[in-house]
């Protein structure tokens, strides 16, 4: 479902606009050019000890690259001793954290310790270059914007130049010692190695070598690589770099259906993981295989599984539950639904394979592997850091190691690879997840709910994580946020635990809670607002709205303490301009109703025949009693001030909600919500071809929109005609003709030259309301019959006789009258004028008998004024029955016709963001039918009758408490309707109701029928049975705010983030490919953002 506003076409046209290209002048200061990947290095002046011992003043210093752990140690040292009370982080350097051999050894003329900096090696694929950025080894808390700077590695070239590295490189890694960066090149099917020291030395003299990949026979492999991963740096600090790279590299070759383990020093393949056509992976220890030569020498690729993404994680921590270090490689194939995890030995060579099939015919385009996580833990305790809190690694939910995979169905799939070893379903409808407690078994179950174990929320594409709106994920990584101090509980920006960050095509970078150690693990019914289930569960998009636990309460100071009291007049209830949903901080609290123009439920009566004093006789959304210190009054069950149980019941799935949505419940309302400037679920005002032939009348659209609209049999089709005052609406050669007898002034598009001829034969059509019933609906065609003119107050169980219809019409007419003045009783309605009625089956409406207006001529079908005189209404007489449209001669409708489709005999619930939700699909013949497999909450109609709620139906009928303010009468002999003092009273009564649940909310529509009044307005003693008061044009609106809004990293200007990488100290590095280089607006050739996982507001932007 999409939602967007159109541009308004209000600007005069430029008379001559070139159709050629748009010229652009890139800003001269831009250093990056469409970055796709980044690797990290540590470089500087280092004491050379040979490693493994403390340094001495005799040890020489050398300028060299070194394993990144050296910089990490200096960053730790710079953090000093953390003092939460020192907001300036001015703690002295903790020199005890210096790496072994780099101790602080003052020695005149010599450095006292190493001088190292971090470097980011930013890969730019199209230009085949590596840009370099640098920053000091600082802890996250000391990072500020501007700390990281792009550097110029070629002073002889203007601007901050990069290093030419290869042809179409697909990824970059550093080798085991941190001395070389290696790229895999799709353009030349080889590797490039960059000597980091040569590139970062002063002056830079980058040494780039090409490294062929060879098999066991020494034959060159010329397959195109798609991804590269390297073992994390683990070399010795205190030695100078060797002349060749070290360690094992993994390169994915989709065309060869293999992932090869390659010796970084020689390019020789050591082993490989090979995929068969079914996606099953095996370890092939024989390095002597060949691949199609995709680069230069011919060789066609054959079909097969295409491994294309990699992630390698060394989890070296040990504890009782994990007694040995683990090293694992995750592999995704872009045409296989199996995620593959390979256990590696100490040399990082493959030893065992685990494969987990994911649901559906999907492929995986990016993968991220987490370390082992002990699931669970709350309220600021970093349960996952075993060195700090729990040496045993248990208990809570137990150990999990998740792989996150970007899938081709537009979701991010999750699977556990060590414990339950199955896909985790992230889309379970929270309504079905009740009764879980904080025992280890429950936490374990919720940590990875088996795929398809429970019903999913309506609209779920599958088990994967769905981003918001139309965003599609591009990449994912997992970071571990370990703040230096306790964070504010439930603060959206307070990251503590494991989180996945997901880049998306729409420019967003989303955050997913893998294991949020700053939030509850299960729903706690004693603290429901602090434990919203969609926020409790792992693998859910992170929420960005604060203070979800707020209640309608007020804190009253009382001396040295304060008291919290319930209130009913919460600030929102006064209405106003509404919340600013564009700001991070403007929305707070749980979801609740926001008044529209001061009304909790805004009501529109259209051209209703009902007096305002009778409004309470119409169906409405249930109200409940709010008892506060400030007031006692009825409030909507959706309101913030409603009792907590009502609020919670009203919004059962926070994640399914839009952050701000207005819902309209319109009786017999349109099935679409779009205007000419919005797109949600299709246009209300449609254009189609009306065909009249021997088979009847039908409306046809080539786009076949009707099942998508949710049309059901007997829905109403209104041919809208045209406005003669709006030029150009009928197309060239046609005119908007208004028949002189038309009571409505609505015209119809007709051939301009034929109006005189067609006026008479088309008269009945032209003067009618042109309302039809769609007897059958297929995706491209609606068959129409004229809609009968019926009495709105026909009992929902059907009429019994024509006389009953007459009585009900008289009663209905009285609803339009103001109540008598001076406390007088209601007049006897039997004196009201009336039409002639037949009580019979209505071919244009299914169900029981209807009161259908009888006639002998058109005049019999008009509205009656108070004197009983007929006023033409657009209903015309056809075969003794009044109808709202006639089947016209074909020539009357030969031009394209505007029309609308409305529901029949039901409220239509339609959201400003969700649109009209329905279960209608097309069957094999194209007929619109209800999907038998649809979620029971995928409904958008509320009829006035429904099965009892005890049947489990939705919607369903019940009797329920309704609290409202009603007139209070103090009858006297001559004034039976004299109002009391006060003139109103709050009452709670049992009311008939229809309970309705859609994916976002549940509520009761009370009083679908009304018994009528006997003496005074609102006395409910009329004795009418099953008589409704609704009428076309009656609509209610509610606005629900503080629904779900996903937390996104606040990256200004990100246009097309293509990749995200976990960086030093759990920093998050986002590569943005940029946008069009505009001379008139801010744009770039791409950016790289560094975000601190624990301080997501601290962002370094490179461009």
């Amino acid at each position, binding site marked *: 479902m999409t939602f*967007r506003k*159109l*541009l*308004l*076409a209000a*600007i005069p*046209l*430029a*008379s*001559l*606009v070139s159709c050629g290209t*748009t010229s652009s002048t890139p800003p001269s200061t831009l250093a990056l050019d469409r970055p796709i990947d980044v690797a990290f290095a540590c470089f500087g002046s280092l004491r050379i000890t040979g490693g493994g011992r403390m340094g001495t003043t005799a040890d020489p210093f050398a300028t060299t690259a070194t394993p990144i752990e050296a910089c990490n140690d200096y960053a730790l040292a710079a953090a000093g001793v953390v003092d939460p009370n020192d907001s300036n982080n001015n703690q002295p350097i903790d020199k005890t954290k210096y790496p072994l051999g780099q101790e602080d050894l003052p020695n005149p003329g010599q450095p006292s310790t190493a001088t190292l900096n971090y470097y980011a090696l930013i890969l730019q694929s199209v230009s085949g270059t590596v840009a370099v950025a640098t920053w000091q080894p600082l802890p996250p808390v000391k990072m500020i914007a501007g700390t990281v700077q792009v550097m110029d590695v070629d002073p002889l070239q203007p601007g901050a130049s990069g290093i030419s590295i290869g042809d*179409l490189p697909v990824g970059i890694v550093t080798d085991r010692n941190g001395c070389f960066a290696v790229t895999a090149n799709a*353009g030349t099917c080889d590797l490039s190695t960059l000597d980091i020291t040569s590139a970062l030395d002063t002056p830079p003299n980058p040494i780039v070598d090409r490294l062929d990949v060879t098999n066991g026979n020494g034959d060159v492999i010329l397959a*195109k690589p798609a991804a590269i991963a390297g073992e994390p740096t683990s070399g010795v600090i205190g030695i100078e770099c060797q002349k060749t790279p070290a360690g094992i590299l993994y390169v994915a070759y989709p065309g060869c259906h293999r992932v090869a383990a390659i010796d970084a020093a020689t390019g020789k393949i050591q082993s490989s993981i090979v995929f068969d056509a079914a996606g099953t992976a095996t370890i092939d220890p024989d390095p002597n295989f060949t691949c199609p030569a995709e680069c230069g020498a*011919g*060789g*066609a*690729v054959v079909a097969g599984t295409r491994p294309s993404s990699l992630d390698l994680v060394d989890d070296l921590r040990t504890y009782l539950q994990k007694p040995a270090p683990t090293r694992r490689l995750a592999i995704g194939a*872009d*045409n296989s639904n199996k995620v593959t995890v390979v256990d590696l030995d100490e040399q990082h060579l493959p030893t065992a394979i685990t494969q987990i099939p994911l649901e559906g015919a999907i492929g995986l*385009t990016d993968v991220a592997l987490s370390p082992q996580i002990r699931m669970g833990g709350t309220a600021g305790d970093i349960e996952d850091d075993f060195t700090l809190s729990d040496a045993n690694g248990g208990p809570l939910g137990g150990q999990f190691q998740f792989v996150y995979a970007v899938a*081709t169905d537009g979701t991010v799939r999750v699977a556990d690879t060590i414990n339950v070893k199955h896909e985790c379903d992230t889309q379970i409808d929270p309504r079905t997840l009740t009764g879980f407690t904080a025992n280890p078994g429950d936490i374990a179950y919720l940590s990875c709910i088996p795929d398809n174990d429970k019903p999913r929320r309506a609209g779920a594409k599958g088990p994967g994580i769905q981003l918001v709106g*139309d*965003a*599609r994920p591009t990449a994912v990584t997992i970071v571990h946020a370990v703040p230096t101090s306790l964070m504010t509980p439930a603060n959206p920006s307070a990251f503590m635990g494991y989180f996945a960050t997901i880049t998306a*095509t*729409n*420019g967003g970078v989303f955050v997913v809670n893998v294991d949020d150690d700053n939030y509850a693990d299960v729903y706690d019914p004693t603290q429901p607002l602090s434990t919203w289930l969609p926020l409790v569960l792992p693998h859910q998009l992170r929420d960005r709205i604060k203070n979800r636990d707020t209640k309608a309460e007020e804190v009253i100071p009382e001396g040295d303490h304060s008291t919290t009291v319930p209130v009913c007049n919460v600030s929102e209830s006064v209405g106003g301009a509404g919340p600013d949903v564009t700001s991070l901080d403007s929305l707070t609290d749980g979801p609740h109703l926001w008044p529209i123009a001061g009304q909790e439920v805004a009501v529109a009566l259209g051209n209703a025949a009902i007096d305002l004093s009778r409004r309470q006789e119409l169906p409405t959304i249930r109200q409940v009693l709010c008892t506060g210190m400030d007031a006692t009054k009825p409030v909507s069950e959706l309101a913030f001030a409603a009792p907590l149980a009502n609020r919670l019941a009203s919004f059962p799935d926070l994640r399914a909600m839009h952050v701000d949505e207005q819902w309209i419940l319109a009786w017999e309302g349109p099935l679409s919500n779009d205007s000419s400037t919005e*797109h949600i679920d299709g*246009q209300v005002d449609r*254009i189609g*071809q009306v065909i009249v032939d021997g088979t009847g009348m039908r409306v046809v659209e*080539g*786009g*076949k*929109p009707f*099942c998508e609209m949710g049309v059901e049999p007997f829905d109403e089709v209104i041919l809208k005609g045209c406005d003669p005052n709006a030029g150009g609406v009928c*197309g*060239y*050669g046609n005119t908007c003709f208004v028949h002189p007898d038309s009571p409505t002034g609505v015209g119809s598009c007709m051939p301009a030259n034929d109006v005189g001829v067609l006026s008479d034969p088309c008269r009945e059509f032209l003067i009618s309301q042109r309302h039809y019933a769609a007897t059958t609906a297929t*995706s*491209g065609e609606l068959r129409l019959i004229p809609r009968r003119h019926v009495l709105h107050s026909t009992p929902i169980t059907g009429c019994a006789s024509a006389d009953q219809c007459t009585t009900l019409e008289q009663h209905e007419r009285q609803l339009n009258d103001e109540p008598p003045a001076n406390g007088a009783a209601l007049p006897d309605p039997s004196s009201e004028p009336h039409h002639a009625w037949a009580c019979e089956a209505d071919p244009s409406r299914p169900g029981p008998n209807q009161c259908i207006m009888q006639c002998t001529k058109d005049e019999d079908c008009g509205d009656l004024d108070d004197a009983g005189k007929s006023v033409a209404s657009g209903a015309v007489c056809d075969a003794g029955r009044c109808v709202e449209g006639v089947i016209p001669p*074909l020539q009357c409708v*030969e*031009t*394209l016709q505007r029309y609308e489709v409305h529901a029949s005999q039901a409220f239509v619930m339609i959201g400003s963001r969700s649109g009209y939700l329905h279960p209608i*699909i*097309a069957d094999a013949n*194209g007929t*619109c039918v209800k999907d038998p497999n649809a979620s029971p909450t995928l409904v958008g109609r509320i009829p006035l009758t429904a099965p009892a709620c005890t049947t489990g139906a939705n919607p369903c009928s019940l009797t329920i408490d309704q609290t409202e303010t009603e007139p209070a009468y103090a009858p006297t002999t001559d004034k039976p309707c004299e109002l009391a003092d006060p003139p109103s009273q709050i009452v709670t009564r049992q009311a008939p109701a229809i309970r309705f649940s859609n994916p976002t909310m549940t509520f009761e529509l009370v009083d679908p029928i009304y018994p009528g009044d006997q003496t005074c307005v609102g006395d409910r003693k009329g004795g009418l049975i099953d008589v409704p008061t609704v009428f076309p044009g009656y609509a209610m609106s509610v606005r629900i705010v503080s629904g779900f809004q996903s937390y996104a990293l606040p990256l200004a200007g*990100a*246009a*097309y983030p*293509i990749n995200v990488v976990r960086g030093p100290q759990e920093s998050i590095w986002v590569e943005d490919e*940029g*946008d*069009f280089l505009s001379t*008139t*607006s801010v744009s770039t050739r791409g950016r790289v953002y560094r975000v601190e996982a624990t301080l997501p507001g601290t962002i370094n932007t490179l461009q």
Partner: protein
Amino acid sequence: MLRAPALSILIAGCTASAADVIPPNGDVDCHVDPNNPNSASCAQRFFWPTGIAISPDESVLFVADANSDLTYNSGRIDVLELTKVEEAITSWTSASHTLGTGCTKDTDFSETMICPETPYLDRQASVLTGNFATAVGVQAKDSDGNLRLVIPVRGDPSITWIDWVKSGTDRFLQCNGTEVGTYATCDDDHKLTRLRDDSDPTQPGITDEPFDVFVDSVNDFAIVTHLASGSASLVDLPKDGQPSISDAISGVFGADPQTGAIGATAVAGRDPGSPDDIVYVGARTEDRIQTFTVVRPRDQPALLQAGDFFFLNTVGSLAGGSRDTRGLAFGSGGDRMYLINRLPPTLQIYDTSLGPQGTPKNEGMSAVDICRDASRLVLADSGDGDRVYIACFDDGQVYAIDPRDGGRVTDVISVGRGPYDLVASPSKKRLYVSNYLENTIAVIDLAPGSPTRNRVVLRLGEPKKP
């Protein structure tokens, strides 16, 4: 959206008016000196080639010379004989690497042969058109290979239609009641400039800047977009009758609030030939796709029926939207839509398969970052699955993208300056690219397994110096 077409604003062109300023047609009857095919009297050279199209039997390539600098007094439609082109490539790519007559080896790209275009053109078939032709659409009229070209011509402005007639062994373009081929100038009967009845000066003229064209051969219509007005024109193309502009809808798209720029750009049909083919139209200033169907009421001209629209929200919607659509193509029987936008520069892949409700899903699936200022795209399957090729006007490159399962750039091909349009020959496994800024047609080898796959193996025309 207004259905009344706006009056056209005729461009006061600066076309050379001297009778002798004719395009470099050469002398039709001259004998081409095999040792000097570009001799002054015989040379027929490309000049600002823009739109290109291939015949359904892949025997000829139609090239629109736009005459963009108005050096000559008209544009021209050339007919490139692909059999001859293939013969030259075969010789060149053989082990002997035989250069064609008058051809040279590209000094920068050893796999590329550069040849004069004259010997490969059916010079007697060419016709002259208005200036600034932008695209070429092809309607298959019958199984004998007779075709009709539909060409948006900005300079007139008109929608020019030209018949490709096969008569025995003769083949020629015809857009003149009295002449065929031989550089005949298209007459007014073949330039559609007014709605319904071109001969009636009271009828509204077409809007400015006809830009792109989609032709549905089976359903006998073409839709032309207009870059300067956001309009779409429907051309009724009865196979045995006179084409006419039967309907037009203006205001399909709105103007950019800041610049006032407006425009309907790329157009393509989801399932050409099907009874209810849905035609998708992209915009220059909006991130929106508008759909149309064509209806033919009884005894009425064919009409454009505007259907639903959808926004391109999948890409860049958090950074100001994704707009300036320059190319649209459908693959997999209409189940996939490939779209290139300049902002952000992306190939966007949409799922346009029919959903459970019988309506195209129109859901974004994935996107691939591409070059800046892309102009057109084409889909080609040379035997190992669909590939998308994108002309990168500014960079002189063609991007080759494997769109499967998320999509990835598989090659970046240096192709020449100002690549504008491209078409593929699946049977020959070639891609033809018009290089607007250097007056050449580049031929790229698409054959899987070929050592020159995704490389320019032949450049026709002497590259004009910058």
